[in-house]
């Protein structure tokens, strides 16, 4: 009896196909077998895990307090992994007191050291996982290990470390991130970096300032956005230095941050920024002027209504609508400006806020407005068109949609 290979050779050109059939059938069987085995294994594993988790949960307080000796579970890999997972999950929903208790437990049981050494000694996904775990603990002693993770060659690991530091939400973590950004530049995409910094700089935004002054343009742009998010009144005059910065992102950040500053000072600076050549700087300035809610900002907001950018006009209109006491004078000035786009933006904002009826009644009951002006204001409000272009026969909405089309 000849060998199997001999049989194939004799088969000639069909041998290849026959081999292929054998291979694919074996592959089919293997795939099916794998699915079957994996399902069975997982079902048993999860049943076992669930049972053990239940046992551990029954004595959770004793476990955390150390009444149950740590050695009873630390030496068993399955139990140790379970407890670690349960503690990390508990961190997610714990208040300050419970967090402190959990952290104390992690320290006393040596779990935190285990995570730190995992983050330091491993590479790839193991390191990645350890960094994520450290971030969830918010333990200050994890900061150096996380900072080392920022210098990993792998982007995913760097991102995990960055997110971990962000979760710490403390100035020490922010210092580490900023120090690393200072030496490595933008080694991660800007958004995760900004997110982490927003979380960790919220308590002390001042730490951003020295880095903002000395970093390169790309980093300054990213940090500028963070400053805009975290700035508080405490930064005060320090923000002013960025109002005439050469980088538009920083001017925008300054404009955004000025909404927290002392109103008189802020309006002075913002009134200049609403004329900035960059649309997003003007947008930030307009939004900040709106947030200040000062009548002194109204002329600048009206100026924003005739901006060349649609978003700036819309935000200016939304801000103006927030001055209910001044609605009639604002509307009068708006019509006097004779800017159709500005008018539409204001009417849109008015309708979104549901204040159209209120403006109408204020115009009707207004004593400082003469009858002729009242008629014009009401007509404009009704038709959405400036006096000279009013066509009473057209329906207001279709006119608005049609005119902007």
């Amino acid at each position, binding site marked *: 009896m000849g060998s199997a290979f001999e049989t194939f050779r004799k088969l000639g050109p069909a041998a290849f196909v026959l081999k292929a059939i054998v291979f694919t059938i074996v592959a089919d069987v293997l795939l099916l077998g794998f699915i079957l085995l994996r399902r069975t294994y997982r079902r048993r594993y999860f049943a076992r895990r669930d049972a053990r988790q239940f046992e551990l949960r029954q004595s959770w307080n004793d476990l955390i307090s150390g009444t149950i000796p740590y050695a009873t579970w630390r030496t068993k890999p399955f139990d140790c992994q379970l407890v670690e997972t349960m503690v990390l999950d508990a961190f997610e929903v714990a208040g300050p007191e419970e967090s402190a208790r959990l952290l104390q437990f992690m320290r006393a049981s040596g779990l935190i050291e285990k995570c730190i050494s995992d983050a330091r000694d491993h590479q790839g996904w193991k390191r990645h996982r350890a960094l994520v775990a450290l971030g969830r603990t918010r333990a200050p002693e994890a900061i150096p290990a996380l900072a080392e993770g920022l210098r990993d060659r792998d982007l995913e690991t760097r991102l995990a470390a960055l997110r971990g530091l962000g979760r710490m939400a403390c100035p020490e973590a922010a210092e580490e991130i900023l120090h690393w950004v200072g030496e490595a530049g933008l080694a991660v995409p800007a958004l995760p970096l900004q997110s982490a910094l927003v*979380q960790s700089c919220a308590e002390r935004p001042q730490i951003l300032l020295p880095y903002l002054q000395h970093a390169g343009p790309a980093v300054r742009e990213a940090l500028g956005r963070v400053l805009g998010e975290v700035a508080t009144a405490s930064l005060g005059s320090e923000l002013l230095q960025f109002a005439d910065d050469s980088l538009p992102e920083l001017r925008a950040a300054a404009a955004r941050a000025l909404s927290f500053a002392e109103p008189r000072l802020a309006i002075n600076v913002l009134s200049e920024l609403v004329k900035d050549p960059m649309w997003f700087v003007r947008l930030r300035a307009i939004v900040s002027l709106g947030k200040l809610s000062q009548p002194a900002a109204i002329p600048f907001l009206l100026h924003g209504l005739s901006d060349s950018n649609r978003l700036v006009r819309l935000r200016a209109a939304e801000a103006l609508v927030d001055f209910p006491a001044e609605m009639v004078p604002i509307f009068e000035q708006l019509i006097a400006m004779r800017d159709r786009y500005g008018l539409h933006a204001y009417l849109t904002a008015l*309708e979104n806020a549901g204040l159209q009826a209120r403006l109408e009644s204020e115009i009707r009951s207004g004593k400082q407005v003469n009858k002729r002006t009242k008629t014009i204001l009401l007509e404009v409000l009704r038709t959405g068109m400036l006096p000279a272009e009013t066509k009473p026969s057209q329906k207001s909405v279709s006119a608005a*949609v049609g005119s902007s089309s």
Partner: protein
Amino acid sequence: MIHFLELSNHILFLYYLLSNLGYLVMLTIALKTSAAHLRRLESIPLDWFKRSPMVPPITILVPAHNEERSICTAVRNLLDLDYPEIEVIVINDGSSDSTLQIMQKDFRLRLVRAVYIPQASSAPVRGLYRSDVDPRLTMVDKESAGSKADAVNAGLNAASSPYVCVVDADSVLERDALLRIMVPVLADPKRVVSVGGIVRVLNGSEVEGGRMRRVRLPRKSIEVIQVVEYLRAFLIGREAWARGNMLMIISGAFGVFRTDLVRAVGGYRSCAIGEDFDLVARLHRHLREQGADYRIQFVPDPVCWTEVPSDVRSLARQRARWQKGLLDVLWPNRDMLFRPRYGTIGSLALPYLWLFELLAPVIELGGIVTIILAACFGVLSQSFFLQFVIFGYAFATVISIGSVLQEELTYKRYNDWQDVARLVSYCFLEHFPYRQLHMIWRLQGLWQYLRGDLVWRPLRRQGLESAGADKAGSSPAVVQ
């Protein structure tokens, strides 16, 4: 003649081998990519994104044509999605039923004078409405132009967010789907211009109040086969193509795009048959011509559940339309083929689509004809033919089971043993006669396109709740 028949049989064999090998390579890439994605997710705090000021706002565009039965539930669910800042724009595309009136009543819509700049072309807009119940909801009432693309364009013109997400009104999004689909954008907002999510088959699952209650496999064979197809297409095909930045289709049922870019390419092409495929092709072209460093991504975990045809007639129409859509996009973009400026899109993705998607039914038909002729002329080796059929069958089954394996290893939506067993058995059953029928439907599509028959043929749908729960006595409605 005999020599020609032998040659064509060999070419057919080679074609089939290449096609399946291609899928095998894609399966390997997809398995690796999914594993990496799942590990990456561990460090991404989705919960934090929900409250972050850094997360960009999204406008959800929902084209609706005669959707009175499901529109309110669908909109309520969209407004309830986990995402910090969303705007929902429903586009009433000239509905002849009471879609607009129901929406007006349920969400207290009022006619507003909102700014509407028609950057993307669409049929005339009759009015813009805003909700008094939820200020995030806007409705655009427009005349119908008979295409979804036209309706989406109208919504695009009214959108005010940097990203738009197009969602079908008859689909069900999972609560965290938006957060998940935005993960690639949040990780790299400068380069990622568009992201597609996975679309899964809703039929058979239990849906309550527009929300997925329990995932089950459909009962009908024709629906289960489509589950296998969808798994293969999304979990293997799209995952692998996206890995090489060659993703050519982002499903019209669920995808996120950068608003400025969609506007820059003129929005959706109103007359396109496959408007989703067409848009992605034009985005690739636009960005490659500009020499931009960009990514079009696919994320396998943000799930959109959609109803698939449950009768042969509707399925035939859908597949014929898909084939027409394919030709409708590939033909105008033929100048991208093998041009260095279009990189891998021109040299790999498009040629693959031409050869293994568009021409597949023609080549398959040619193969069948030559085999018959070879048999008539007595030059067909019966044993070789039998072996070829067995090999083709077994190889294709490996790929299908591979997609089930991918599902098992990663997202595991079908938890019931019975469901998995059925899914696997349909991996074996789909090849006869479904595959042959599929070839005929696709050939019909090509023929219709070449004849200029571009008429939209309606599909029979059951609606969200009935399609999901398979309720007895539900009356199917004809919707666009």
